[in-house]
């Protein structure tokens, strides 16, 4: 792409992304009340989507060799156990991330 095309592409990406983010509010947010079905969906979505995002983050995990999945598996276990025990988000995340970094850099 030449310079002009790059800026046009950036504009297209920015507008399309904004369109996707605004779409639900434009369609369902107009009236005083959210339609009942959508409202119901909106309450159960966060938990389902967080589950989906966790899977999305781990999508590159491969089971062909221990190095492909053990670091992620161990680090996730550290996060889960720590979080169930202390319920402190920052502690869970820092410990899990340091653990993962040590595993991928030094062990596997």
């Amino acid at each position, binding site marked *: 792409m030449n310079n002009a095309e790059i800026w046009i592409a950036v504009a297209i990406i920015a507008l399309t992304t904004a369109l996707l*983010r605004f779409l639900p509010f434009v369609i369902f947010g107009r009236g005083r009340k959210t339609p009942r079905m*959508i409202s*119901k969906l909106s309450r159960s979505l966060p938990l389902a*989507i967080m589950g*989906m*995002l966790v*899977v999305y983050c781990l999508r590159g995990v491969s089971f062909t060799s221990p190095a492909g*999945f053990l670091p992620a598996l161990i680090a996730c276990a550290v996060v889960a156990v720590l979080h169930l025990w202390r319920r402190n988000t920052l502690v869970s*995340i820092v410990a899990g*991330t340091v653990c993962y970094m040590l595993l991928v850099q030094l062990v596997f």
Partner: protein
Amino acid sequence: MKASLKRAFVDTLPVMTGYIVLGFGFGIILKSGGHSMLLALCMSLFIYAGSMQYAALGLMTGGASMISVFLTTLAVNARHIFYGISMLDKYRGVGKRKPYLIFSLTDETYSLVCRDSLGVPEEKRGDYYLLVSVINHLWWITGTLLGAGVGALVSFNTEGIDFALTALFLTVFIEGFITAKSKLPALIGVGASVLFLLILGQDNFLIPAMLLIAVLLCVIPEAGDDSDKSRCDSESTDGKTDTAFVDKATEDADEGQVTDGE
């Protein structure tokens, strides 16, 4: 506002770790492609969608057509529709902050604002949402500019530090799982994602998984919502559907565990 600021700042620290690192990486790749700091700034300011910005760099060097730029953006960012749907009610009554709150609703900002237990009083919620959104946006821009500016000078081994975002989503997921009245949405979210990941592979699973999640969440009865259940609770057909979905979700979750152990 001051109390909210402290609270919001602390809550964004996990996002900071991920955003500085991922933004830094983005800045480095952008600069090594011969692009300007101004482009780095504008992309992180106006697009503000991490994975799409990485994809954009590939499209630029690959000389993609504008149509494929548009279609790629739709595919990569379709999940944002879901964030909007689940924030419809929470973002009511936030006043003039609303357009910016919607514009800046990334995966990570969503993971912070979607929580039911924020520890913030009802009347401060609007401020809290705005502060979290702005601070996250600033982390992302800071990371991008640092990467584009001094990225070439850094030799610290950051491999694996992006796990911070995985860990963030995992803690929000666990927190939600513990407090949720019904665990079904969690099982549906993980189950549907793992199912399509196994069938379609990592590049194509997200949109089908989203559709299945939306359909299943619409048909299952909601926990604690009497208005939905009361009328047809005694009917046998409804009871059957109910059990069928529990079974399906449990199956999916089992599948996930089996894969984990392999």
